[in-house]
């Protein structure tokens, strides 16, 4: 997905009037926003504001939750309607990958962890598989550390390494967008820094949407920030503006720590 017009690129995700309900309870209210390709967008807000739920709308992970109902539209890449019931979600999720809060490597070898997404997508030759596994591990800077023990269990890695493995696993399916749900909240400060540097590098090839409740993190790494409060999108603007001249009173209160 290459964007010709870099000054005013077509948004890779267009959210229109998105409502989401858990049973009777409305969790997301009339959300409309656009995500710019090759950017890092941070979604911030107090816990329970619906930021993870919004993120999971983008790759339809909310399908897993019983009696969860979604209204409105999310257009991916200018033409694919994500909320289309007939859409092949497995294909969608290959294009829009996800990294979770806690590192969750499979109880398989490091190699098999990375190869997993490629294998379920269809048959590939052993040599191509090897190449793509190496490529993914190089991109997250894990290759040097694990190239001699690819057959070890992915469970044996440290927290930060395991999370980089999970990112590599996602990259290996060659997605356009990578969704990250508080990817550093379970990690120590040093691992967090490594992951943040990695996310900045990822911007070159991918679009990143990251949920975080760490405002410094949002300010450090993101190009755009969206502030969600009680299911409503309060403000969505370039990060520099958001953190210096917020348009809304509620945003200012939140980022200056008056609540949340």
């Amino acid at each position, binding site marked *: 997905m290459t964007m010709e017009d870099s000054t005013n690129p077509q948004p890779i995700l267009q959210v229109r009037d998105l409502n989401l309900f858990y049973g009777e309870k409305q969790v997301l209210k009339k959300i409309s926003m656009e995500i710019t390709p090759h950017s890092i967008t941070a979604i911030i807000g107090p816990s329970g504001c619906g930021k993870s739920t919004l993120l999971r709308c983008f790759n339809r992970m909310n399908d*897993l939750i019983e009696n969860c109902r979604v209204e409105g539209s999310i257009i991916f890449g200018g033409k694919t309607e994500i909320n289309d019931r007939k859409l092949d979600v497995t294909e969608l*999720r290959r294009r829009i*990958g*996800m990294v979770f809060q806690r590192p*969750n490597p499979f109880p398989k070898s490091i190699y098999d962890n990375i190869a997993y997404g490629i294998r*379920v*997508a269809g048959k590939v030759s052993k040599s191509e598989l090897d190449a793509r596994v190496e490529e993914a591990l190089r991109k997250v800077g894990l290759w040097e550390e694990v190239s001699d023990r690819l057959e070890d269990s992915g469970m044996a890695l440290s927290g930060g390494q395991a999370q980089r493995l999970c990112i590599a696993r996602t990259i290996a399916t060659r997605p356009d967008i990578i969704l990250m749900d508080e990817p550093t909240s379970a990690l120590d400060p040093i691992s967090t820094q490594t992951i943040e540097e990695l996310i900045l590098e990822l911007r070159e090839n991918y679009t990143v949407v990251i949920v975080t409740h760490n405002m410094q993190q949002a300010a450090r790494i993101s190009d755009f920030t969206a502030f969600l409060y009680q299911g409503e999108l309060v403000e969505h603007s370039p990060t520099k503006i958001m953190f210096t001249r917020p348009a809304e009173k509620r945003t200012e209160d939140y980022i200056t720590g008056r609540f949340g």
Partner: protein
Amino acid sequence: MMFRRVAMTDLVAYGLILVFTAISFVPLMALVFFIIAKGLPRLDLDFLFSISPSLESGGILAPLFGTLVLTVIALVIAVPISLLAAIYLSEYARKDRWFHLIELTIVNLAGVPSVVYGLFGLGLFVIFFGFGKSIIAGALTMACMSLPLLITVFYQSLRAVPMTLREASLALGASRLATTFRVVLPTALSGIFTGVILATARIAGETAPVLFTVAAYYMPNLPESLSDQAMLLSYHLYAISTQNTGVSDEQKYAVTLVLVGLVLGINLLAIAARAKAKNKISSLV
């Protein structure tokens, strides 16, 4: 005064609980030792692996073989079906009224007396399907009987797989089916193994369901096909201990020892496997 009286009643209560607990467990252990002591002297390779020309002369290869074959066939039938059923309940079914109906049905199936399974097997497999009294009829009956146990254990071990692993797999573009077979099942493998072993022990030890479906009182040879009857260890013990056959007590104890050893041994294996499964799962959470 007051202080002392409370302490006294407490002591009596402790005493009673201890005594009743001891009554519950001590006879079991004594029994196992007793059976070993009485049965071991008669036990040798010849006793285990020869076919007796008559009921009295010992040589339990025929019932041992029958039990083995019956158990394996019953498992081959029951395990895949139970696994699919457990997959449905754990990975696909919505937790609605139907789900609770199935749950309740499984509890009830588990409680149906084994002799009723015997009648069922007689009515369906022996008569309706016309298999006659045969290994296949007995194995199918045993398979039905072990379904509730297998489904329950399989279901529990699938549920024990952390949700995060399923999410990771789905987020990588794996379908639900691929997720189930490539991530959930391999992770739950030792739990599934536990279920299989438990069912093995149950099938090997049961008698009532085979009475009318397969068991032969005495056969001078091994069964040759699935439509033959077979001798079975449990039924053999029943036969020699209730009929006046002139079988020596020593021999009866030896048969008991083999049956108990087989079933308890298999069960201990299951308990060990389960402990391993628990460790594996807890390392994932």
